[in-house]
């Protein structure tokens, strides 16, 4: 048991927490954050497990570096999509429209009908 392995286990716990949040939470932005938590957990597992004997290992570190940049790009794209979805439907969750209050929906329909 080395400190690196401790971080790998922390990564596993983060994956579990993030998975629970991703499945449980309704708000899309919260889902996105939970998804990012899972990603951080995976990164920790990768580096922590590869360095379990205490030596730094540049190969997984480089892969995680690539992964972080891809993750931020994916997050930014997801934020754009969530905003677009909110703009079009007036909701911040993926629930059925009938389950939510009808007012934002009607308002967005009006706005879509307006001339650009």
């Amino acid at each position, binding site marked *: 048991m080395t400190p690196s392995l401790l971080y*790998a286990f922390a990564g596993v716990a983060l994956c579990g927490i993030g998975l629970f949040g991703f499945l*449980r939470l309704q708000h899309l932005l919260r889902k996105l954050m939970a998804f990012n938590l899972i990603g951080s957990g995976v990164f920790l*597992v990768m580096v922590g497990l*590869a360095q379990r004997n205490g030596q730094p290992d*540049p190969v997984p570190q480089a892969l995680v570096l690539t992964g972080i940049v891809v993750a931020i*790009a994916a997050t*930014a794209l997801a934020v754009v999509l969530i905003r677009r979805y909110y703009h079009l439907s007036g909701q911040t969750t993926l629930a059925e429209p009938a389950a939510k209050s009808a007012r934002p929906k009607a308002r967005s329909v009006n706005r879509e009908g307006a001339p650009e």
Partner: protein
Amino acid sequence: MSRFLGITVLAAVCLVFAGALMITVWQIAGTQAPVDLPGLLADNLEASGVEHPITAVLLNFRSYDTLLEIGVLVIAGIAGISMANTASLEDPELRTSDSLLYALQRWFVPLMLVLAGYLLWAGSDRPGGAFQAGAVLAASGVMMRLGGIPMEFLRPGVLLRLGLALGFSVFLLVAVVSAMAGDAFLAYPDAFTKPLILIIETVLTFSIAMVLLALFVSAPVNGAEEPEEGESG
């Protein structure tokens, strides 16, 4: 009641998942790695053209990953831009009158640009490189954007397209040229390894910053069209 039951089942599923993962990690930790990657890397670092092992992995030994990664970034950037309409790029609401932010910006933006340049240069033998420099560059761009400084190059046009595609196309060009010269795909010629890596890193920095900035800038536009914004503003 069924809601409570649902949460319990969900928590149980997640606990089982985490437990199984935990056991797997514990078992892997008990085994010996089949190849000694750090040792291999240290032996071949001389041939890579740079002194920092992570830069060597990113841009030489595993450059295929980096090539595909910048490809993914470009696709994400294009998708993000196509989602937005850039009419409100110089949104008057964003133009700040906060004198503190304005004063801070005058100090910070040049500093951050210098920091990005330093990080890019440091990548050859110290921690640093294209990714960090690109992130800092994008962050300074975000700061300029929040302060309301107009950034003409983010309009859809030649500059935006060039900035988005530059990193990927230069990288791909190097790869294809080296393949046509008889070497393997992405194998740099021995004599030019260091300059080629430097060029690729520089264009990668610009492209990464451009993609992140474009994704950030394309986001607020939808919100700015909300009628509530106008009422409250």
